[in-house]
């Protein structure tokens, strides 16, 4: 008698993959049948980006156990490097899907480099201090990109940093055939949008594959051991810096790929899109979905991206309702009194007596 039943975690992982595939197929059928509203169709790629942002942040927050408030910074790095790559390779790689893949790889690569640069100082700190430094890096990235001028012509890439605030794209000295890719505070403009829903789906699947496999690997167990008790884990010989760095950089790279897809979904994009509020938004997805629970992150990211759209009939009140929903969900899942009520109602619905092993 070998293993007849799968391990619980494997079953959960398969369920997660299955849910994503099912959602993709259903949405594809609905979209091609014209049953989706225009605004929702436009949201499909951003939803995929936010889903993989949430899953990758869950790696840092849920599995590594460090609070990051600057995840949007990596998305920004990925988005703008991806846009630069896609725009400069326009003639070299005419096939859009291939160019998109290359751009996403470039985005992931640059974000990974940024992850190493940021992770080296950040991971030496602990708790709230670590959180505030990730926030600081997120803001620094935003301001640097805001000063960035990038153009491309037959001589290659031209870069400049607009520190004084009075340089323009003309100062790059582009040839007549040149194109301006990033214009400082105006961000990227005139980008050929090559992002597709299928690419988004593949991105989510790859992100899930990387994160779930990392979690169940030897390295993943080491990372979780460090999360639960760093001193005990170090005393049995686990290399703290190495494993923390591995999780942090993987998370950054995945965010970069998501950013590249996001950047190539809009013809123009400003650096201020990836500010502190975006980092917080993604953190909300992760916490609401449950720390370490990837399916939860996916559902929360998709639901909370659609929710403001679905509340459009409330117009002015929709963000207010969003805030109230957020507070109520947190209270409902964490307040001991409300939780007891909820458990009793759930138990009554399923016809069982409440038991301690329920959660």
């Amino acid at each position, binding site marked *: 008698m070998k293993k007849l039943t799968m391990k619980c975690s494997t079953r959960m992982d398969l369920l997660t993959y299955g849910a994503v595939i099912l959602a993709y197929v259903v949405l594809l059928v609905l979209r091609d049948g014209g049953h989706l509203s225009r605004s929702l169709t436009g949201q499909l790629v951003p939803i995929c980006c936010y889903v993989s942002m949430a899953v990758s942040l869950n790696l840092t927050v849920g599995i590594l156990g460090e609070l990051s408030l600057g995840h949007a910074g990596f998305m920004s790095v990925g988005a703008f490097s991806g846009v630069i790559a896609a725009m400069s390779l326009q003639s070299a790689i005419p096939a859009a899907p291939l160019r998109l893949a290359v751009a996403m790889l470039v985005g992931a690569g640059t974000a990974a480099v940024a992850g190493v640069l940021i992770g080296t100082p950040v991971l030496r700190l602990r708790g709230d201090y670590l959180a505030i430094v990730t926030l600081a890096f997120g*803001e620094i990235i935003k301001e640097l990109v805001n000063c960035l001028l990038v153009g491309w012509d037959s001589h290659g890439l031209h870069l400049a940093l607009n520190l004084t605030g009075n340089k323009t794209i003309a100062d790059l000295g582009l040839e007549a055939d040149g194109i301006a890719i990033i214009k400082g*505070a105006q961000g990227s403009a005139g980008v050929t949008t090559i992002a597709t829903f299928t690419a988004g789906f593949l991105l989510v699947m790859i992100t899930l594959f990387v994160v779930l496999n990392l979690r169940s690997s030897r390295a993943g167990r080491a990372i979780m051991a460090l999360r639960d008790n760093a001193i*005990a884990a170090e005393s049995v010989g686990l290399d703290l810096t190495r494993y923390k760095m591995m999780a942090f950089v993987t998370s950054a790279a995945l965010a970069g790929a998501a950013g590249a897809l996001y950047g190539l979904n809009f013809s123009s994009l400003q650096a201020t899109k990836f500010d502190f509020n975006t980092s917080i938004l993604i953190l909300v997805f992760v916490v609401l979905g449950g720390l370490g629970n990837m399916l939860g992150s996916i559902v929360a990211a998709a639901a909370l991206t659609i929710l403001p759209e679905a509340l459009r009939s409330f117009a002015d009140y929709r963000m207010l309702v969003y805030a109230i929903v957020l507070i109520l969900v947190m209270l409902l899942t964490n307040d001991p009194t409300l939780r007891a009520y909820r458990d009793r109602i759930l138990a009554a619905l399923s016809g069982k007596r409440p038991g301690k092993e329920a959660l």
Partner: protein
Amino acid sequence: MEFLSYLISGVSLGSVYAIIALGYTMVYGIAKMLNFAHGDVIMVGGYISFCAISYLGLPSIVAVLLAMLVCTVLGVVIEGLAYRPLRSAPSLAVLITAIGVSYLLQNAALLLWGAGGKSYPSVVSGALQLFGGQLSISYASILTVAVCLVIMAALSAFISGSKLGKAMRACSEDKGAAQLMGINVNATISLTFAIGSALAAVAGVLLCSSYPTLMPTTGSMPGIKAFTAAVFGGIGSIPGAFLGGLLLGIIEALAKAYISTSLANSIVFAVLIVVLLVRPAGLLGKYVPEKV
């Protein structure tokens, strides 16, 4: 002379950060939570005093007192409804709730007062001319610095001298032990929120007197900066918040003047990162090594 005027504007901005940072650091010290909604309480304080001055025609001192009263009530209500039920919940859950409260305040302000910027009537106007007009210091900045010093002195005396202050220190050391000694922990935490929110109202008035555009998002960036200042000085430490706020304001003003306007915030944050790498618990914070 130019340098001096930049320095003075930095000290004035830093004083506002210090007042806000005091609120952050007190709440963190006692409830061990990052109150992200603190920045938005500043904004509410700004709007209340704006309405009192512009619509009701009240004198500015009454307007400030009214703003403090409303913000104090607001702070205590927020704590009671949103944070108290989560006392035993994981800190991330509390953080997200605080973010929810922050969104709620911002959007409520958006509905009540609209998205457009309101031009704030300064509480004090005019400027002090020194060195035959070469150096002009606005009365608003002098008032800001003076108010900050008074608040700082009063708060230090309250925390170290009074019985309630002692209770607050006891709660921040060990809530369980404090409760066993007969201290009402919930009431003490409410008091901390009340003081922090009243300070936020003052900060809102002072901030709007120096930077007179009032919007629903007015509070968020100063809030983040003040939080940075609190961490910079060592979160949980009251002199640390004062020092951190002041230094942050000065660095920001000088960076804006001499290095780059568009990178001023980055420079502030870069200094924070360097300081935290050298002193991982902030300038005046106590570093508690992890024990087995």
